[in-house]
């Protein structure tokens, strides 16, 4: 009887220790904790782009001073702000502050 109590106590305490350190905690959507204080960023599945992107499919930034298509477009939900060119990425040199919007 005492042995059973010992075993029950030990396994309960052990299981509690494991769970409390986050070793077995899972959180939503295929993602979860990796342990105390860190998040595991594994994605839920492979990325497949189905043979690539169509020629007109574009994701990149514009260049400042680019073509007229990038000028005069008021931002969505701009609250009446004046139309202005689509900004580009920072292009200033390191140590010299940002530049070229």
């Amino acid at each position, binding site marked *: 009887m005492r*042995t059973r109590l*010992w*075993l029950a*106590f*030990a*396994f309960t*305490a*052990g299981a509690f*220790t494991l769970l409390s*350190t986050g*070793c077995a905690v899972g*959180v*939503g*959507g*295929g*993602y979860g*904790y*990796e*342990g105390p*204080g*860190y*998040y595991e*960023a*594994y*994605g839920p*599945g*492979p*990325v*497949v*782009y*189905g*043979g690539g*992107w*169509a020629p*007109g*499919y*574009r*994701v*990149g*930034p*514009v*260049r400042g001073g*680019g073509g007229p298509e*990038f000028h005069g477009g008021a*931002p*969505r*939900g701009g609250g009446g702000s004046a139309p202005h060119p*689509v*900004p*580009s*990425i*920072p*292009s200033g040199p*390191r*140590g*010299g*502050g*940002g530049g*070229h*919007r």
Partner: protein
Amino acid sequence: MTHLKSKLLAVAFLGVTGCATVQAPPVQFPAIAEPPTQEHHAGKVIFVELVTPDLGDAKRFYGGLFGWTFRDVQGGTRRYATALVDGRPVAGIFERALPETERRRPAWLTYLSTRDVDGATQLAAKEGAKVLFEPHNLPDRGREAVLADPQGAVFALLTSSTGDPPDVLAALGEWIWSSLITFDPAVDATFYKSLFDYEVFDLPADRNVTHLMLASDGYARASANSTPAGATGVHPHWLNYVRVEDAAAMAIKVVALGGKVLVEPRVDRHGGKLAVVADPSGAVFGLLEWTDSQTKEVTQ
């Protein structure tokens, strides 16, 4: 005798679980800005972090591809390394075993800057995001949280304790651009605008696709794009691009180092080429050419 064995077994079990707790302190994640800047740029992608099953393999791949060097960070049984370009942190790489039974893949996690992680997390949840990891402090890094936006793309919020990297042109081998690939870019743009007060620009695009530009502080920070046609099974995700001199040459190098090319090098909005690739473990990232020349015009 049986009693003695049972007691020894029980004590051993307690000892093992207790030791596991004591001997595996969490990694002390390093600061992202060295030297400190004390700048804050809401909505800017300020860091990316890879979780991968083999740190050594990742070092060989990314070191061979971009010339990154690495600084190991000790953390008990955990293995973590900061990737550096010219001594500046550009990424973190965290090792974790990926059991074959798990249907998951290594991925780069995108960190967006905010001054108020807690407030932004609350607002995001109210706007339909799922909080995957509640706001918490990391001693040297700052305060962060991890979320999935309303369409499922995972990202992190970070208030960096040493400030954000400055708004300067990314050097070769540094991250230069980010795209959110998602089912409905307009819905996500509204969501991220609520968090970061982005300006959102609608760029000309082919029929049935949307290309939105998210800007803050007068700089383009990221794009929000429709999921490309034919990309069945692709879930919404953030995709980050490293600046390279020659995307075609780098794509060849990716394959030579054991990676894959998912989108062949092609000319994009900015007039240079970009490609999408995966490292040997399957983590996806982009390559983007960007010349210093300001005379290069946008091509279609």
